[in-house]
């Protein structure tokens, strides 16, 4: 028969376990998973050299990778803007100068403007 004064039940209900966070836990798990995948494909694990995929996984965990990528993206965007501007400006200038040149050799354009055209001698 159950004793109502038994403190075990209330102790079990109030019991909580909160393990302290282990640094590098995620990376270690990834490494073990990848090492296990290497074993299942009959690849002999080489303890002297680290698994390249594990290093990649560690790199992703690097805290500054996202801010660095963002800075790089902004720099590349700025460079693209400047390059686009140079190309656009050059295209506009070429178009304008081509029309100016044709006006010196096309009688129809010369007479259309009814300007005091001069037949320039180089």
């Amino acid at each position: 028969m159950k004793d109502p004064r038994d403190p075990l039940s209330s102790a079990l209900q109030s019991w909580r376990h909160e393990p302290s966070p282990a640094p590098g836990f995620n990376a270690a798990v990834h490494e073990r998973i990848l090492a296990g995948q290497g074993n299942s494909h009959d690849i002999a694990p080489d303890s002297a050299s680290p698994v390249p995929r594990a290093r990649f996984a560690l790199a992703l965990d690097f805290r500054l990778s996202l801010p660095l990528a963002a800075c790089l993206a902004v720099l590349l965007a700025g460079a693209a803007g400047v390059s686009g501007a140079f190309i656009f400006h050059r295209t506009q200038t070429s178009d304008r100068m081509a029309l100016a040149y044709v006006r010196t050799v096309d009688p129809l354009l010369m007479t259309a403007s009814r300007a005091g055209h001069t037949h320039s001698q180089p």
Partner: protein
Amino acid sequence: MNFSVRHLLLAVATASLAFGLTIWLLQNRPAPADEQAWMRSEFKLTLAQETEIARLHAEYQPICAEHCAQVLNAREKLTRAVSAADKTAAQADLTRLEAVCGEATRDHLQRVAAVMDPEQGERFLSLVGPKVAAQTHDAPLGLK
């Protein structure tokens, strides 16, 4: 707004700002002095090519002047024509003259393009060809 969207917007804003600022700065640059200076730098002309093109240009100017005078006369005649028959005849004259002028202009441009390096010549014709007033669309200007 999450991290990547914020940075994407920042990149777009940076690109737009860089584009606008560069365009504004470039507009303050002096334009090419004249058409010959522009052609020399744009189509990378050698001294020999530049001299030959100048010679062709000088040779063509009397023909151009003659055509100008004829076109002005034809337009004047069309303006002054009273009867329908006169107007039709004047319009036919003007149309014929416009075709002759256009042909002469295109011929001159092709001779200029032939002096340049082939790649530059093609690029020259693609730039100036569409600007010719009497350009027909049957076939674009190309190196002969």
